[in-house]
């Protein structure tokens, strides 16, 4: 039914993939990358607005457009930024904008849970791991502070192409298919009681699943502790003479 929209959707997917390709770190890159990326994101935003406009939307969803463009642009930057810390920070942007999108369509409980769990807990874990495992390279130049495996992506052409094919297929299917009709009035009526309804459903229909999720979280916590700990020697005879910061460094990983 939307045969001309499909090509527009392919165009959006191609632009996004091109943006990722341009942005992926490569050895010996010129420094105009940021501007090219910015232009691509702007073009993407324009296309997204056009696409949404064509998909039976009015012009009164400015916040939706802004959130959508920020979300996709932030995701591009997560994937392409050469420094992992900035990737993690851009991922916070993606989480916040995705939560905004979810809240905008009425799923307020899930949106707030997303902010708490992702932007609060998971991101702190990521930042801790980045701090624990980031080496400090020799600072003899401007780009020397970026590690060499962050400076060159693995086969950027082919991965961007694969991503383009995947995105174009998914977006094309979304645009092309005849989805069941959507009742906006009923949806906004349902959104008014969202947290109440979700809580009631969680505690009645999904009570066993909630318990299982709790068990799963505890098992994962114990597993993570068991995997990531260091084996200290028993008795502590050889670590007795070391200063406190040096004790863990002389233990071989098991």
């Amino acid at each position, binding site marked *: 039914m939307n045969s001309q929209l499909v090509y527009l959707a392919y165009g959006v997917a191609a632009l*996004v993939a091109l943006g990722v390709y341009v942005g992926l770190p490569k050895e010996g890159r010129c420094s105009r990358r940021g501007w090219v990326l910015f232009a691509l994101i702007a073009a993407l935003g324009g296309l997204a607005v056009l696409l949404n406009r064509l998909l039976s*939307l009015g012009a009164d969803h400015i916040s*939706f457009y802004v959130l*959508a463009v920020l*979300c*996709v642009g932030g*995701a591009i930057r*997560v*994937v392409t930024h050469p420094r*992992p810390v900035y*990737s993690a920070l851009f*991922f916070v942007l*993606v*989480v916040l904008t*995705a939560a905004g*999108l*979810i809240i*905008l*369509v009425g*799923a307020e409980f*899930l949106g707030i*849970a997303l902010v708490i*769990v*992702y932007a609060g*807990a*998971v991101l702190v*874990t*990521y930042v801790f*791991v980045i701090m624990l*495992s980031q*080496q400090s390279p020799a600072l003899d130049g401007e780009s020397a502070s970026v*590690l060499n*495996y*962050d400076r060159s992506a*693995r086969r*950027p052409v082919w*991965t*961007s192409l*694969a*991503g383009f094919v*995947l*995105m174009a297929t998914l*977006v094309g299917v*979304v645009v092309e298919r005849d989805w*069941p009709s*959507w*009742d*906006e009035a009923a*949806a906004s009526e*349902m959104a008014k009681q*969202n947290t109440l309804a*979700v809580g009631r*459903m*969680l505690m009645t229909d999904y009570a066993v699943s909630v318990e299982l999720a709790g068990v799963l*979280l505890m098992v*994962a916590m114990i597993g993570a*502790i068991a*995997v*990531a700990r260091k084996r200290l020697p028993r008795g502590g005879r050889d670590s007795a003479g070391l200063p406190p910061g040096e004790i863990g460094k002389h233990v071989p*990983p098991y």
Partner: protein
Amino acid sequence: MPHPNTLMIIGALLFGLGVIGFLSRRNMIVMFLSTEVMFQGVLVNLVAMGMMHGNLQGQMLGLFVLVIAAVEAGLGLAIVVMMYRRVGTLDAEAWRQMRG
């Protein structure tokens, strides 16, 4: 309220971007971040589809996907820390011998 199809497009783009990042980056932490981006796409899609059918099942499944994502982040990052201790680098190419 925006149409669910538009949300599905955002979800599809997020998922594809995560796939690109997982395939192309060499830093293991960024690879895991890309999987989290994929999770975001799936979540947005679940909410949109639940909305389209006019019930809360999509949001419920999204909540449990959130739990699984948290578990995955904890365990995966523990494994990343262990691998970093073993080879001293975060480069995924350092585990080339696992290709077989």
